[in-house]
């Protein structure tokens, strides 16, 4: 696989992605916090926002060399879609995966 990291402008794009990730992770953390509250009426709309952000991250992170973040975002996105569609309302699993995703992003941001 020929990655894109040698392209002119790649580092600038990567930095822009990381900057935007700060806003995106806030939305995801908000949804994660809503999961912990029992019967939170705000959960579904917050998860819908998180799903959209996770979708964006899963689409671009891998191409920017952050494959683990991209894969974990995809996993969280799929769990969220299943939850919102009531296909697989496994909130405990979703909490675990969100937590893992948030810690991965925090690790990248701390570097």
């Amino acid at each position, binding site marked *: 696989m*020929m990655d894109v990291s040698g392209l002119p402008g790649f580092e600038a794009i990567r930095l*822009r*992605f990381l900057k935007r990730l700060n806003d995106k992770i806030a939305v995801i953390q908000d949804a994660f916090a809503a999961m912990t509250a029992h019967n939170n009426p705000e959960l579904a709309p917050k998860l819908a926002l998180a799903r959209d952000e996770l979708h*964006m991250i899963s689409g*671009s992170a*891998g*191409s920017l060399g952050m494959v683990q973040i*991209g894969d974990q975002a995809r996993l969280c996105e799929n769990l969220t879609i299943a939850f919102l569609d009531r296909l697989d309302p496994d909130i405990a699993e979703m909490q675990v995966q969100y937590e893992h995703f948030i810690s991965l992003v925090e690790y990248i941001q701390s570097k």
Partner: protein
Amino acid sequence: MRVLAVDDDEIILELLEAIVGQIPDVDLETACGPEAAIAAISAAPVPFECLLFDIQMPYKNGIELCREVRAMQDYKFTPIIMITAMSDKSHIDDAFAAGATDYVTKPFDMADVQTRLKIAQKRSEAQLESGQSIHFSSRAAYPVANAGDKPNLFDHIAVFDVPGLVEPNSLMNYLSQLSRANLFGSGIFAISIRRIEELYLRCDAFEFEALIADVAEAISDCLRNESFLFSYGGNGTFDCVVHGGRQPDLNELVDQINIQLQQMGLCYSDGTPQQFQVLAGDFYRLVWRSSGTVGDVLADAHHSAEQAAIEKEKQLDDFWFAAKGQTAV
């Protein structure tokens, strides 16, 4: 080649600009989302020569956008490359059925994106050189061929608005890119129109194209319970790809198609009934085949159906001449 890339993520658009910037003679414009895409397409003084659509976009996804753009007269034959996450096979199938010609996956492999665009570039240039002289058919919505424009028997004939029918190049792109896992449970077979040479000689351009369109409709309708894509490969033969573990009963399928064709009551323009039938060749499973050999399997399936059609006529001739005490030549 002028390319329009559409994605709701600006980061992806920036990446595509960087990747495409490496290809000579390709100019990329971008649109952030379907509405911006339609605006860019409408405002373009000259139609774009290639389109790149992300599949998963909010409000209107790339598949709907593809369908909408394909309905525009200027974009009937424009290469449309879909951008998708690796796991979205069902989306890929839907995209091809909506008129996509190829796809690239995210995360991007730079070489793959560039290869797909170069293929599209060649195709676009070939169409420009030929003056977009691909024959097309269809009775209502599009202009029809004049008698003098009769396609060669072996030419591809584009037929629109038949569910599951795609161009031969698109079918090949689709198959060659499917992963081994996605090929699992898939199979290929072909369906041939019997006595196609005779029918071809009897038909004028419009009648022949209409005949191909009618058979395509019958095949599509009879495969409606399957997950499938198919294309017209010329010489009266359609190449079909089906998914799912179950192998369709080809004898039953052929019977259904022939009954449907009979019920359509097809006629030449002078009112004479068109009497013909189709038959199927061998069924080829794609399990464990590498993507590189899929093209060979498609060719084998196509050839098998054509041979079956020839054999069937020979058998009938032998039977006829035997009954008359003669030998078939």
